Structure formats: C-alpha cells, structure tokens
C-alpha cells in the first residue's frame, strides 16, 4: 500500500513515476477518512487543498522539476499558522482563527513541494503530555496493549502529529517541542522525532507558548525521513530574532555516517529506582548496540538533572502568561461579552482557556508578580544556567548522550489527570535538553511486555544534529523496529 511507504520511498517512487502525487495523496486522504473518526489526529482536514497541491506536484514532476518534498503528503501541527487554513492551537479561544499569513516553517515546506493534508490535534497551546487538554477532544494512540482494547494516549503535546504518522495517515508531520512535546509522543507512538537545536527552525508564525524553549521539528517513521524533513524546515529567518544564521547541513547524509570512534555519554543521574526494569533494559541494549558499532561508552554526570522539571514549571508558565496575554477577545479569536471591558477580558479568557492553560497562566502570573519574582523566576533562571553548564561540561568529554525518552510507555486516556505534577513527570528525561537548547532525537527501540513501543533519546551538542542523526540511524538499524500499531491504514476496524 502507498501508505506503508516511508517518506524517502514515496519520494523515490514519485521520481520513478511508479505512482502519481494525486494517487499518493488520495491514499492518505482515504486513510484519514477511515481512521480520523476513531483516532481524532486531525482537527481540520484540508482535502481539497491537498488534492490541488498534489495535482500541481504532478504537473511539476511532469516538467522534470525536482524539489525535496515534491508531492509528499504531511500533517501540520495546529500550532503552525497556515494562510487561509484555520489554526486553533487546540484551544477554544482560537476556534474561529484563520491566519492571513504562513509560518516560515510551513512556507519552507510548501517551497519544497509538500502537500498539506490538514492540521493535527494537540494539547491546548502545546501544554500537556497526553493530548487530553485539546479543546477538540483527545487523540487515541494507534497502539493498544496486547489483548486490551482500551484507548491509550499518544503522548503530547504533538499527539495528533505522532498518531497520524504512526497510523499511516501521513508520511510525516511537523511538531513542536517546548519540554518534550516532539520526543515523548514519538516514543509513545513508535516513531522517530527530533527537536533540533534552539534557533535551527524559525519560530515565526508558530503560536507561541514559551519563547525561550519552543522549537519546531519533524516526526516521521524513520530517522532518515526526519532528516529529510528537517532539511526543509530549518534555515535562517530574519523575522525571528533568535533564528540562527547558519547553513543547513545535509542531515540525510549524516544518517549514513559511522558511529565508530564516537564517545557516547551515559548520564548517571537518569538512572532511578523508580524506572521500570524494561526501560532500563532497553537503555542498556541501546548502549550495547552502539558499543558493537564501534562507539565508546562513557559514564558522565549531569548533576542538576533532578531540578530540570521544577525549573521548567517556573520558566515555561512565566513565558506563557506573557505570551497568552494577547488573547483578550479584541483582535482575533473568540469573545465573550461582559459588563465592561475588564469583565469582557476575564470572561473571554475564563471560557476560552481550558483548565491546564488557566493553571499555567496563573502560576506564571504568580511567579512574575511583585515580591515573588526573585524567589521563583530569577532563581529558576540561575538553575537553568547550571543545567546548561552540566551539558557543556559533558560535551567536553563526549560527542552525544543516550537516555530513555520517557519514563513509561503510553498510558490510558484519563490516567494522571487528577494530579498535575504526576502528568508533568512524563517529561523528566526530555526537559533538561530543552532548558539547555540542545538537540534531541527519539528513536523507536523496541516493545515492552504489553506490546507498546519504547523510545531511546539521543542528545547532541548545539547545532550538531548531524552526530545525533548518525547515532539515531545506527540505533534504528540495530533495533530493526518493524512492529506495527493495531490501528493503521488498510486494517479494518
């Protein structure tokens, strides 16, 4: 089936004219029509637009044009503004919002010929690790436990993007990562996903959550597919003052590099007594694979690891409370009428934001308020400096780090909903790299005893995604992960 192809295979098939771009897009739209009522991976499906883009791609292919993503159908996280196509950020407050402009990342994908199938579901404003906070309903993970049909979460916040790719409704997807929102759902859905270095992809036109942490990246079913997509998404953008003015390397070529002679660090603080033995075993297996491929395994220390999450839950809500001040019912989005202007603001935001967003905006407002700024926010920024120093020191000894991506496999919808802190602990292994701005890739490495995928995380030096891809591709070859989710294109429900 066309939906079973990797993005690289689909690209090669189009070039050979084995099938047309219209056929490829129709196959994916059929999968979306069949599966989305159950999985809810898309908030908005742009079928007509996708068909027109595919037809244009066929015309371009007939003329001999060769662009990196020509005719390849993708899902776009609903956090990326798309010109003329509704962009909700998973929130009621943006439910009617139709941007009059295109984000830089999606504009880069369109420049390279991609087809957009629609906008992928996500936790509201990217705040969540389960996709349960979306105002447009939860997403079901295409994977289920063996002999148990209960709906599991796909992780979050990029849960719709990852579920769509895992179920073969799209060849790849855009995602964003603020504290783990690419890597954790990729791990839960048995696919690959990379958060590149902060500054690698432009944030212009991406609905802002925490501006010093937000970074766009791709998710796909292979490491090479992620490399191809990142090559198109990345690049300098004068419209984002934190965009890095650096050349974009050939990431796909880096996937073919050997890891022989590389030094791979094992951060000892990532071990814990609470870690499920299966995840610890998977981690050791990953290290053995890299050792077998000629890498040297080195113990390292990242002493402030345990403070990463608490630091994150000051810095990210603080930035969010500032970024989300723009949703006031005046310039865009929903408005709820009130007795006067202030009442209108307060009712608009109370009804427009869900519980988790309201909680984080309030935490952020509190830690930035007079009298508490130094105790909370300034202290967190200093601990953040120490977390970055940990990584800088480690990268003086090693070329990359290997850790588990998440402390568990996918859990059931509704679990961990009563205790915000229990939900936050999902990101314990992904948050430190976000705080430091370094790149991180999750690779599916195997299944747990219940038949659910587990991911390994490769972390690299700033702007050295190439080494991250080389290590990730080696793990992928060794793991030889060809397990399939129960719910996917072509399988009757």
């Amino acid at each position: 089936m066309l939906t079973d192809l990797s993005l690289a295979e689909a690209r090669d098939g189009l070039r050979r004219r084995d099938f047309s771009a219209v056929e490829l897009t129709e196959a994916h739209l059929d999968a979306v029509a069949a599966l989305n009522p159950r999985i809810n991976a898309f908030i908005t499906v742009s079928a007509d637009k996708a068909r027109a883009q595919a037809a244009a791609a066929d015309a371009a292919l007939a003329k001999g044009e060769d662009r990196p993503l020509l005719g390849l159908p993708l899902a776009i996280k609903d956090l990326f503004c798309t010109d003329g196509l509704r962009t909700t950020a998973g929130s009621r407050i943006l439910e009617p919002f139709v941007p009059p402009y295109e984000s830089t990342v999606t504009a880069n994908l369109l420049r390279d010929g991609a087809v957009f199938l629609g906008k992928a579901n996500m936790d509201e404003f990217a705040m969540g690790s389960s996709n349960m906070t979306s105002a447009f309903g939860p997403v079901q993970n295409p994977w289920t436990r063996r002999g148990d049909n209960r709906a599991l979460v796909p992780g979050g916040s990029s849960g719709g993007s990852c579920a769509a790719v895992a179920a073969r409704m799209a060849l790849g997807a855009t995602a964003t990562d603020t504290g783990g929102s690419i890597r954790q759902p990729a791990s839960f859905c048995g696919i690959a996903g990379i958060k590149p270095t902060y500054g690698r992809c432009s944030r212009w036109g991406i609905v802002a959550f925490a501006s010093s942490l937000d970074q766009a990246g791709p998710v796909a079913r292979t490491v090479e597919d992620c490399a191809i997509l990142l090559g198109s998404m990345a690049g300098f953008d004068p419209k984002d003052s934190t965009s890095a003015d650096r050349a974009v390397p050939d990431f796909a070529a880096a996937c073919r590099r050997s890891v022989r002679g590389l030094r791979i660090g094992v951060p000892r603080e990532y071990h814990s007594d609470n870690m499920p033995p299966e995840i610890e075993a998977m981690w050791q297996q990953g290290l053995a694979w890299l050792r077998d491929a000629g890498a040297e395994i080195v113990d390292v220390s990242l002493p402030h690891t345990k403070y990463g999450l608490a630091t994150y839950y000051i810095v990210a809500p603080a930035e969010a409370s500032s970024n989300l001040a723009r949703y006031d019912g005046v310039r865009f989005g929903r408005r709820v009428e009130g007795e006067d202007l202030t009442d209108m603001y307060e009712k608009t935001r109370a009804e427009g934001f869900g519980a988790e967003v309201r909680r984080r905006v309030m935490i952020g407002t509190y830690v930035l308020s007079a009298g508490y700024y130094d105790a909370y926010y300034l202290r967190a920024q200093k601990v953040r400096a120490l977390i970055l120093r940990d990584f800088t020191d480690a990268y003086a000894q090693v070329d990359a780090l290997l850790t588990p991506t998440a402390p568990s496999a996918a859990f059931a919808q509704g679990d961990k909903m009563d205790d915000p802190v229990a939900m936050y602990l999902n990101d314990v292994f992904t948050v430190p790299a976000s705080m430091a701005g370094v790149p991180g890739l999750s690779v599916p490495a195997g299944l747990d005893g219940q038949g659910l995928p587990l991911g390994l995380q490769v972390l690299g030096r700033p702007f050295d995604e190439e080494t991250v891809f080389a290590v990730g591709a080696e793990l992928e070859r060794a793991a030889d992960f060809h397990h399939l989710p129960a719910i996917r294109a072509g399988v009757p429900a």
Partner: protein
Amino acid sequence: MSLDPATVRRIARLARIHVGDTEAEQLAGELNGILGWIEQLNEVDVEGIDPLTGAAQMAMRLRPDTVTDGGIPELVLGNAPDRAGTFYAVPKVVE
C-alpha cells in the same frame, strides 16, 4: 509559601481570568501542589550564578528601523470579533 483563595483571586485578576469562589478554593489546592513541588529549587546553591534568559546563546540581532509591511487593514482586522470601520471595537470604557 501557601496560597489562600483570596490570593488566588488576586492572581486571577492580574491574569484577567474570571475565577468564581468555588473555583478559587479548588485552584488554591492545585496551585499549592505545584508550588510546593517547585520549592525543591531552594536546595540548589545559585550563589554567583548569572541567570540564563534563553537558549539562543547569541547576541540579539538588530535590523534597520524601516517599515517592512503594512497597508493591509482588511487582513489585519479579518479575525476581529467586532470592528468599527478600520478600528477594533471594544465595550464602552468612558461614560
């Protein structure tokens, strides 16, 4: 530091989010749970450490102070919940 419902209502006011009395009670419990957990940062020795504001690790870039966009009021106002001519409209603030 522990938040009482009155403080929660004050923060809600600052955040411009309407919070009812029952909700303030419930939020106080949730926010205290999160803030209590965050207090672990007090164990970290941050003496002499400069705060890190961002992950970009580069100097902020400047650009020439010139107009690069504009003249598109219909696009700008296209998503407004209410408008009057080429202005956003809000409830009356002056009697």
